[in-house]
């Protein structure tokens, strides 16, 4: 089976006032289709840096990266934008919805960049809002929704172009435990029922308990990588 993510020797060095910081140091990792991976580790261990490289928002200083069997390390900006648009879905800790823009328009945005015709955009956006259970909020502005509702809209947005991989950096970090639990159930349903591959960064063991596999980072290295029995649904 062709892996979704295949990372070999990925290293990221930041240059800060002449001092080089090795945020990632030779990471090797493979993620297969249908996996649900939780990335854990202490603050500053390189989790977000790794997410950004896998999400093609940033480039590694060294190492190679294949996404769905294609080497994407050498691609230019436009090609990277197109892959982000068609193959990747992002969910952020701070939701990152466009302010003063309705839920449904937020969900439509990635389709605008992917060139989906206007009529289809509406329909697909509504479908995805239904799927994450907030269709009734489609005309609400971000500031008219709770954090949990906004994160659901953001998840709907990550789904619209049928991504091969969803990347979520602390998606429950700003939510209370109840809302966090319900968002995690949504991710889990998407993974189990739709077979969507998910990689998610978290600090909370409760959240990580929903994943099938937990990768732990420390100082830019992978400390452990273990499959686990999921928390009962």
């Amino acid at each position, binding site marked *: 089976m062709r892996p979704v993510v295949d990372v070999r020797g990925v290293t990221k060095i930041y240059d800060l006032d002449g001092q080089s910081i090795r945020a990632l140091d030779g990471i090797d990792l493979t993620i297969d289709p249908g996996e649900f991976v939780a990335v854990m580790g202490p603050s500053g261990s390189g989790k977000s840096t790794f997410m950004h490289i896998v999400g093609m928002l940033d480039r590694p200083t060294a190492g190679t990266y294949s996404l769905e069997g294609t080497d994407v390390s050498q691609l230019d900006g436009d090609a990277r934008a197109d892959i982000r648009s068609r193959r990747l879905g992002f969910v952020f800790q701070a939701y*990152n919805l466009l302010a003063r823009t309705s839920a449904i328009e937020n969900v439509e945005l990635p389709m605008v960049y992917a060139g989906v015709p206007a009529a289809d955009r509406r329909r697909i956006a509504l479908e995805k809002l239904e799927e994450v259970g907030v269709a009734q909020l489609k005309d609400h502005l971000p500031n008219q929704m709770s954090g949990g509702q906004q994160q659901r809209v953001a998840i709907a947005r990550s789904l619209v172009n049928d991504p091969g991989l969803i990347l979520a950096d602390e998606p429950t970090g700003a939510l209370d435990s109840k809302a966090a639990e319900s968002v995690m159930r949504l991710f889990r349903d998407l993974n189990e029922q739709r077979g969507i591959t998910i990689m998610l960064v978290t600090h909370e063991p409760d959240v990580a308990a929903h994943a099938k596999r937990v990768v732990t980072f420390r100082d830019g290295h992978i400390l452990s990588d273990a499959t686990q029995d999921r928390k009962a649904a």
Partner: protein
Amino acid sequence: MNTRATLSLAMRALLRNRSRSLLTMLGVIIGVAAVIVTVAIGVGARTSVQQQIASLGSNLLIVQPGSVTTSGARTGYGGASTLTPADGLAVATLPGVAAVSPTVTAREQIVAGTQNWQTTIDGVAPTYTFVRSWPLASGTFFSEQDVASAAKVAVLGQTVVQNLYPDGSSPIGSSILIDGVPFTVVGTLAPLGQSGMGQDQDDTVLVPYTSAMERLTGQTTVSALDVSASSAASVDTVQTEITSLLEQRHRIVAPQPDDFQVRNLQDVAAAASSTGAIMEFLLAGVAAVSLIVGGIGIMNIMLVSVTERTREIGLRMALGARAKTILRQFLTEAVMLSTVGGTIGVCVGIVGTLLVSLLAKWSTVIPISGVIAAVLFSALVGIFFGYYPARKASLLSPIEALRFE
């Protein structure tokens, strides 16, 4: 991403910040409105001066007495009493001259029944209507015979008719008193309206020049000679011929200055339109500067906007926007601001122009080419001043933009 999607993205971004968008456009609105109003006034003034001069007939030459020096003080042109009706008759015999009408001007109180009015009395010859291409509205003009006998007949301008006959009755055949002397009205002139200098040309009474000299001014000289050349092409030759003829008649030799002046209306027209053009150019320049200031306002706001929306730009890139798409969106926003501002400015300018012509009674002409140029120029302002901020936005790296604080 297609054009429609780009436009709708840009429009939504602008609508999210309505009041700021409006304030940003204000500079362009004012600039374009100023361009429209100034150009409309300039072109209007030039057109009306030209029409005025054309209505006088481009073949017209005016001979005026020169200035005189009394104890060292020189009067202006027309101050001397050197032109006589005989000069007029002599000029009329020149080849290339179609007609000559002497003019004797006086200002008098006139009375008709219970009404009275002060106006300009112009003593002229029957050729006057031809020379000035000024048709009659009713009645007849006085004849050579009336001139020979210094007949007490008069032709009234429309303003005088309105003031002396407010009930609308026909003035033909009635009697008016000019400076106490009874004159019979034989005709009325067609309305001519304001002159280029804003004078009411219809506020006049025409009488035979002999009657004016004998009965009103008591002088033997005339105030001017209106000469009509037989064709526009012969105007220059006729001008030199009149000059040498009058120099001869007035016995003026080389170093002595002429005691008269021959003016060619074509020169006056050219001078008027060239001063008009210079004014227009200056005004349009000032207006264009204000438009550029408006453009700098747009650039300023777009730069602030790029900084403020850095995280938004990062998000859009994360969601699949290419650098070029970001560039196009921000450029479209700038151009939209400037062209929508330009269009509103055109509307404001048209309203302002109408107000000016309504309140100040100035004639104005809004040239379509000016409107199109103003809108195009404001679009250019948007492209020029929007490019730098837009490019700055598009060069951001997705991750740096997303993490921007």
